[in-house]
């Protein structure tokens, strides 16, 4: 049913790289804006603002990035599902991505609210950065495995 050769996405050589660029721009928006909040939680950058102010300023841009990323990603996947299906790094990446998104909208969001201890802020920020960097490593390594 899902043969790579029958997928319209594979009809032009330009579609896959274009989607890849969208994917990169998407995570520059999403991971980039989340990282600004993370660095603020770590006490770096945007210190004239509270963590909550930075987080609420950036939330819509994070969402735009996630939308770009989660549109281009499945389309890239659909170009050759077999390759991804058999790739254990891809599985790992999906697990990390799920964890990162859930973490972002639960524990991470709570840490941006007032009354979070300095230690908790730093731990949450470090976990957030580690999860997202892990997702990016997964994205590159799945092509090398």
């Amino acid at each position, binding site marked *: 049913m899902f043969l790579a050769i029958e997928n319209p996405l594979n009809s032009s050589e330009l579609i*896959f*790289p274009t989607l*890849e*660029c969208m994917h*990169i*721009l998407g*995570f*520059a*928006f999403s*991971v*980039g*804006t*989340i*990282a*600004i909040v993370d*660095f603020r939680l770590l006490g*770096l*950058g*945007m*210190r*004239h*603002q509270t963590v909550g*102010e930075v987080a609420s*300023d*950036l939330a819509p*841009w994070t969402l735009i990035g996630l939308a770009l990323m989660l549109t281009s990603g499945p389309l890239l996947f659909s170009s*050759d599902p*077999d*390759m991804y299906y*058999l*790739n*254990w790094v891809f599985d790992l990446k999906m697990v990390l991505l799920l964890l990162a998104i859930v973490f972002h909208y639960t524990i991470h969001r709570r840490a941006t609210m007032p009354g979070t201890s300095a230690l908790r802020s730093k731990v949450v920020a470090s976990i957030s*950065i580690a999860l*997202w*960097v892990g997702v*990016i*490593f997964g*994205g*590159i*390594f799945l*092509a*090398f*495995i």
Partner: protein
Amino acid sequence: MPLLEFAQWVQSTEFFTAIRESWYVYPAIMSSHLAGIALAGGMVLMVDLRLLGLAMRKRSVSDVVNQLRWLKWAGLAVIVTCGILMLGSKAEEYYYNIFFRVKMTVLSLILVHSLVFRRSVYSKVSEYDKTGKIPGRAKLAASLSLILWTCMVICGRGIGYIEPPLDKLHARVIQQQHSTTESVNRSHVSRVPSAIVWKLPDTHGMRSQMERM
């Protein structure tokens, strides 16, 4: 020393040979390069979008521009370091890569951009706070920056799509030994061979034979 010979010498050094020959170091550097793009890219985007009056409008322009400046430069330093490591390990291949050349041209335009607009825009942002207006040249600077960085991403991704001229490389291409999904491995995800082993140039001026193992 001509550029090509220099590239061949650089990639033949012990350090860069080690990077190239390890199956995981090169992708790890590439991942760090991308992680740097994610971390610093967001800051570049937010600074430019603030100058355009689109993002973080509740904050003053100077707050956004000045408070993200050093963090942004730290991220760019990571990107550049990883880029140099990738370049050094496959210097000869990059030498022939048209997208790499375009990317370096765009990079030099970005340097020109920062020289041109540093004085006239980025060090004047506190004035924009007072007047409450963002002048046209600041918006021009932000737009150009967004365009140039997008071009960097496109060229960067494009590099991986150029087939290396195997008959010209003084290196032996080894296919990945560790591949678990060889039969379904997509060639166009990463067309650049995973490991290239340096081989001394032939003294008779003949190109060393490329062997696919």
